[in-house]
């Protein structure tokens, strides 16, 4: 059966495609901010902390995604506070939160009686298992994050370019710091169902980094990253359907390979044009 026929026939595939497109848009917008603000490792730390919440949800008997949101937001606020205080080096804090979250997840699951649940879909994603609830969460998070970014777009640009100057000018930089960390937390957790905790960082960084090679405007980067992300997600979904392999892994491998192909193409074009190509595209 062709994939198109299957999409028309099966509801789970329709949810998978709709959720995948939303995840791509969300990942693009947050990803460009993460890449420009150099928060990739912090995003990884926040996302992995969510695993503790998943474990607690299973142990205490509530929806694991609620636990994941709670743990990720708490980690985002905690890391943000410590980072702003400057008491510790950022990478030390990220490493501690990262490992603590994972350790708590393992601990909570090990405390469960009977057979432990299979958490591989949280770790590696399974877009084909998403339902109406997952789709609704993704749609809500995408809408809220997009709205916040669009409403304060010029402030985000000033903040991302030079947060010290923004703070002197009286722009609420602490508010923007925490807002970014919380947006990263909720976006990453919403995307867990697509690529999983371990792989979500690729969906945040690969489309944004590839877009940065192609255009020089912040808004344009978000749009191009969204288009690339959608291509990676749909392409990965198609490959996994055709070859009957892991969807999350297919999406991530396609995204990373595509990034290096785009990077190589831009380099080759720049060398052939005597270094003028990128500047021409960027002006």
């Amino acid at each position, binding site marked *: 059966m062709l994939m198109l026929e299957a999409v028309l026939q099966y509801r789970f595939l329709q949810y998978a495609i709709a959720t995948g497109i939303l995840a791509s848009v969300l990942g693009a917008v947050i990803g460009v901010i993460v890449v420009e603000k150099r928060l990739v490792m912090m995003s990884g730390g926040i996302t992995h902390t969510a695993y503790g919440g998943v474990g607690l949800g299973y142990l205490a008997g509530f929806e694991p995604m609620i636990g994941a949101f709670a743990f990720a937001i708490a980690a985002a606020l905690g890391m943000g506070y410590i980072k702003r205080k400057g008491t510790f080096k950022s990478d030390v804090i990220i490493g501690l939160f990262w490992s603590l979250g994972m350790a708590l997840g393992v601990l909570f699951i090990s405390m469960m009686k009977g057979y432990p649940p299979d958490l591989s879909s949280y770790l590696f994603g399974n877009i084909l298992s998403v339902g109406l609830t997952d789709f609704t969460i993704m749609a809500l998070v995408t809408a809220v994050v997009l709205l916040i970014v669009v409403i304060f777009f010029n402030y985000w640009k000033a903040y991302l370019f030079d947060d*010290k100057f923004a703070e002197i000018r009286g722009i609420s930089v602490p508010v923007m710091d925490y807002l970014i960390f919380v947006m990263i937390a909720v976006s990453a957790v919403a995307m867990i169902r697509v690529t999983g905790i371990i792989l979500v960082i690729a969906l945040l960084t690969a489309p944004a980094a590839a877009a940065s090679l192609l255009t020089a405007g912040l808004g344009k980067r978000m749009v191009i990253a969204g288009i690339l992300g959608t291509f990676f997600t749909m392409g990965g979904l198609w490959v996994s359907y055709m070859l009957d392999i892991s969807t999350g892994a297919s999406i991530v491998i396609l995204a990373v390979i595509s990034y290096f192909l785009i990077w190589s193409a831009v380099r080759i074009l720049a060398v052939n044009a005597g270094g003028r190509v990128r500047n021409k595209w960027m002006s």
Partner: protein
Amino acid sequence: MNESRGTAIHVSGLTVAYGNNLALDNVRLDVEIGDYMGIIGPNGGGKSTLLKAVMGLTDIMSGEITIMGKSLREGRNLIGYVPQSTEFDRSFPIDVLEVVLTGMLPIGLKPFRRYSEEEIRQAHYLLGSVGIEHLARNHISALSGGEFQKMLIARALAAKPKILLLDEPTASVDASSRAQIYDLLDELNKEVTIILVTHDLLAISSRVRRLACLNNRLIYHGEPELNEDVVTNLYGCPVDLIAHGVPHRVLKEHGGEDGCSC
């Protein structure tokens, strides 16, 4: 605006520490309105920390800072800050005009804030006043060190500051651009008070009107004519002043192994 009409910045008993390291130790400094003050000192001597403290960007252990007679919180909007161009990611997706426009954003967070036609015209005017209006729509990666610094000055001016703080604005620019930047600052000093952190002793001798020498403590505060003892004390190594006490050259026997950081 060469005559004094009050105090632009008053700093007293300022102490700032990073962990166990004392960056500023009981510093007292007054900058008069209309002043053009240079701040010199060795690396790690607290020059940039002093600027950060005046802008409220670092926690202070003790001391008091007022800006135009107002508290730091109320007065820091009167400050325009020009950082070093080396602090920036040149690949950031923004063009020259947009950088200047960021200096016009109002305080707080105003939803759906877009730049007006008047603000865009003003940004073009400011770029023209620093001599790079023709680069308005260029990406920042296309600028030379001097052009980048001029763009940052235009951005600082966009906020209509009363005081301009510049942190080594000529550190990574060629000689021609350096002269242009100093000429520009001379012109701007007719309207705003200027505080210039620099290692460029030629600028100190020929441009600024008052001088502060900082090596964690304030070593000297006064006219930009230095004697050998003051500069030796400041840099912590032997110095040789030439040209009537003007510090065109300060290093005498600095071999790089005596622990001094000049």
